[in-house]
C-alpha cells in the first residue's frame, strides 16, 4: 500500500479505475449481490418503520451516552468483566500491552473488528512480539497479503477467486483450480491450530446492551465464537457509540443489521456475551476485559450536525450501493472505513484537514441515504463537510474565486448570457485538454456540443 492516507485518494482512485479492471468487476459483482439481497430482505419486513425505530433508539442512546456508558460499566463489572477506558490508539496499545504481560500472552487470535483496524492493533501487537492471527476468512486472506480491509463487512471483496487460488496454492499447496469450499477448508485446517493454541482472543462488538452488560457479536463463520470462548482471555474493544439501552433492543438491531449487510434474516452465529466463565460453565475465557474506545468519537458527538454519523452500525449497505465505491474499491480511500460512510466518518474522526478530499469523493447521487438502516443523512453530511472545507480554505483559491464570479454573473441575466456565449470560444478540441481546470475532464470525454443558439435566443425569436 503506497501512502495509505486520504490525501492519496485522487491518485489511488484513478489508478484503481485505470489499472484494476479485475478488481472493479469483482467489487461491482459482489456489492450488487449484497445490495440485491438487502433489498429482498427489507421487503420481508416493514423496513421503513424499523429504520425509524433504529434511528430513534440510537439517537436516544447517543444523547444520553454518559448515562448508558456508566450503566454498562457497572453491569459489566457486576458480571465479572474488567472495564478499561481509552481515549486514543496509544492508550489502547498501552492497555493491551499491560494485559499481554499480566496474562502471559504469546499467541493471539482475532475476530474481525474494524475498530482494531482503526487503532492499528495488529501492528502494535506484532511489534511486541506476539503472534497475531486473523480468523475471519476474508481477514485471513488479506493478512496473508499484508493488506488492510477494503470493505466494512467483506474485507477481501477486492480479491478475485483466481488471486485467492494463487495465494492458497503458494501457502497451503491447494490445487490451482480448488473450489471455494476447498479453499475455505484449507484455511479452516490452518486456523484450527491457532484457535487451540491461542492465549488471547480479541474481538470488537456490534452492540453492547447497557442494562445487562451484554456484548453482541454477529458473524457467519463461527470464528468469532471460537475466538471469544476458546482462549484463556478475551478482550473486546468497543467504540463508545456501540451502547444501546436495553438487551431487548438487540432483537431489532441484530436483524436490521444482518438484513442490511448481507440480506440474511440474522447472521449464522450471534454471540451474546455476559462475562467470563462462571463456576460450572463448560467453556469460556477465565478473564474478560472490555476496553471502551473514544478515538475521536466524543469530539464528533459534540458536533451538532455531524453527530448523526455515530449512529452507524457498520453494515456496509451504503458502500454496496455506491457507484463511486464500485469503481474505486475501498483501498483508494486511504482510511479504515470506505464508501459513503467513510467519506463522513473520516472528517469526523480524523479532523477535516486530514480527511481531505474524502468528503468530495461522491457525486451526491443519494442512493446511500435510501439504504441506511439507521437513516444517517449521508448526502447532507457530505454537503456539510464540503461547506466546512470551503470555509476552512481547503479547496483551491481559483475554485473559490471562480464560484464567486459565477454567482455574481448569475445574479444578472444579461451578464450571465454574455458569459455563457463565451463557451463557444473555448478551444475544446484543440486545447481543451490543456485547460487548467478542465484538462482531466476533457481527456476522458469528447467536449460538450453547444447548441447552435441558446434557448433564450430561440425563445426571443418565438418558438413554433
Amino acid at each position, binding site marked *: 500500500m503506497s501512502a495509505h492516507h486520504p490525501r492519496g485518494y*485522487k491518485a489511488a*482512485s*484513478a489508478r484503481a*479505475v*485505470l489499472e484494476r479492471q479485475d478488481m*472493479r468487476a469483482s467489487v*461491482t459483482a459482489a456489492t450488487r449481490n449484497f445490495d440485491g439481497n438487502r433489498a429482498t430482505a427489507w421487503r420481508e419486513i416493514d423496513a421503513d418503520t424499523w429504520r425509524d425505530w433504529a434511528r430513534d433508539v440510537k439517537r436516544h442512546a447517543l444523547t444520553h451516552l454518559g448515562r448508558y456508558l456508566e450503566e454498562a460499566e457497572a453491569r459489566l463489572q457486576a458480571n465479572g468483566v474488567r472495564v478499561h477506558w481509552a481515549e486514543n490508539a496509544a492508550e489502547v496499545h498501552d492497555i493491551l500491552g499491560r494485559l499481554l504481560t499480566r496474562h502471559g500472552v504469546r499467541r493471539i487470535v482475532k475476530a474481525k473488528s474494524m475498530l482494531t483496524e482503526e487503532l492499528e492493533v495488529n501492528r502494535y501487537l506484532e511489534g511486541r512480539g506476539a503472534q497475531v492471527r486473523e480468523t475471519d476468512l476474508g481477514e485471513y486472506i488479506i493478512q496473508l497479503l499484508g493488506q488492510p480491509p477494503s470493505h466494512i463487512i467483506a474485507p477481501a471483496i477486492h480479491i478475485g477467486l483466481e488471486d485467492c487460488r494463487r495465494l492458497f496454492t503458494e501457502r497451503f499447496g491447494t490445487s490451482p483450480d480448488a473450489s471455494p469450499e476447498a479453499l475455505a477448508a484449507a484455511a479452516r485446517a490452518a486456523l484450527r491450530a491457532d484457535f487451540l493454541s491461542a492465549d488471547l482472543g480479541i474481538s470488537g462488538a456490534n452492540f453492547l446492551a447497557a442494562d445487562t452488560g451484554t456484548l453482541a457479536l454477529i458473524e457467519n463463520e463461527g470464528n468469532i465464537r471460537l475466538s471469544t470462548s476458546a482462549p484463556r482471555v478475551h478482550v473486546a474493544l468497543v467504540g463508545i457509540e456501540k451502547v444501546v439501552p436495553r438487551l431487548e433492543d438487540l432483537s431489532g438491531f441484530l436483524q436490521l443489521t444482518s438484513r442490511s449487510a448481507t440480506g440474511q434474516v440474522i447472521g449464522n452465529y450471534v454471540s451474546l456475551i455476559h462475562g467470563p466463565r462462571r463456576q460450572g460453565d463448560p467453556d469460556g475465557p477465565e478473564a474478560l476485559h472490555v476496553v471502551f474506545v473514544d478515538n475521536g468519537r466524543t469530539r464528533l458527538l459534540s458536533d451538532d450536525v455531524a453527530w448523526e454519523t455515530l449512529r452507524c452500525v457498520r453494515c456496509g449497505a451504503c458502500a454496496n450501493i455506491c*457507484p*463511486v465505491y*464500485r*469503481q*474505486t474499491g475501498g483501498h483508494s480511500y486511504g482510511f479504515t472505513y470506505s464508501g459513503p460512510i467513510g467519506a463522513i466518518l473520516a472528517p469526523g474522526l480524523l479532523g477535516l484537514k486530514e480527511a481531505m478530499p474524502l468528503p*468530495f*469523493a*461522491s*457525486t*451526491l*447521487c*443519494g*442512493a446511500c*441515504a435510501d439504504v441506511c438502516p439507521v437513516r444517517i443523512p449521508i448526502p447532507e453530511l457530505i*454537503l456539510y463537510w*464540503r*461547506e*466546512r*472545507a*470551503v470555509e476552512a480554505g481547503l*479547496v483551491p483559491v481559483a*475554485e*473559490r474565486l471562480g*464560484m*464567486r464570479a*459565477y*454567482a*455574481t454573473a*448569475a*445574479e444578472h*441575466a444579461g451578464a*450571465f448570457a454574455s458569459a*455563457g456565449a463565451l*463557451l463557444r470560444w473555448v478551444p475544446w478540441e484543440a486545447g481543451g485538454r490543456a485547460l487548467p481546470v478542465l484538462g*482531466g*475532464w476533457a*481527456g*476522458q*470525454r*469528447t*467536449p*460538450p*456540443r*453547444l*447548441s*447552435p443558439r*441558446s*434557448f*433564450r435566443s*430561440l*425563445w426571443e425569436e418565438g*418558438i*413554433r
Partner: protein
Amino acid sequence: MRVALFATCLADRLYADACADAVRLLRRLGVEVHFPAAQTCCGQPALNAGHVAEARRMARHTLRTFRYADHVVLPSGSCAGMLRTHFPQLLEEPEATDLAARTWELSEFMVRVLGVTELGRGLEGRVVAYHHGCHALHELRVHDEPLTLLANAGARLASWEASEECCGFGGLFSVKFPVVSAGMADRKLDTLPPVDMVTSADGGCLMQMSGRAGRRGLAIPFRHLASVLWEAAS
C-alpha cells in the same frame, strides 16, 4: 394553466432544442408557457461543491425570478431537486417552501399535475433505454412517470442493469476526479443493451454519457427526454 419554464443554465446552452420541445409539448397540452427573462442558474453547482454563500445568492435570485409563477417546470430532475429539496433549507423563508411545492420536473408535471399519460404513438417500435438521473430518482422520487409516457407512446423500454445508477457526472466531481467519473460512465455504457436511443430528463447526465461514448468511439444516440416526448406527441 400558466407555467414558468426554467430552462436551466446547462440546457439553455447544450439542449436548447429540447427546451423548445418542452415548450411545444406544454402548449400542445393546453398550457400557457412563460419564460421569465431574469432566470440564470439555480445554484446547484455551487451548493454541491460546498460554496454555500454563492449557492444562496443564486437561489435567492431564482426565488425572486419565479416567485409569482403558478408552476415552475424544468427539463431537469437535478435542478428541480435543487429548488424543491434544497431551497427551503438554504433560504429558510416561507416563499422558498412555497416555491418548492410548485416546482416540477417536466415528465413529473405532465403525469402528476396535468394527469396526462398518453401523448400519441410517435415512438412506435423504438427501443429506448431510460437513464434515471439521481436527483429525479432520490430527491423527487420520480421513477414511473417518464417510463409511462415513453411506453404509452409505443416505445419498447430496454432492460438496462445500470439504469438507476449514477452516470458519474456530479458537477465538479467530474472535474475533481475525472478518471473515476469516466469509470462510472463506462459502467453505464458497458451494461447498455442495443437500443435505438438513450434518453434522460437530465442534460448533465446526457452530456457525461455521450461525451464518454464519443471518446470511446461508440455511436449511441443520446437524446433529451423533452425532445423524445415531443416526438411521441408529433
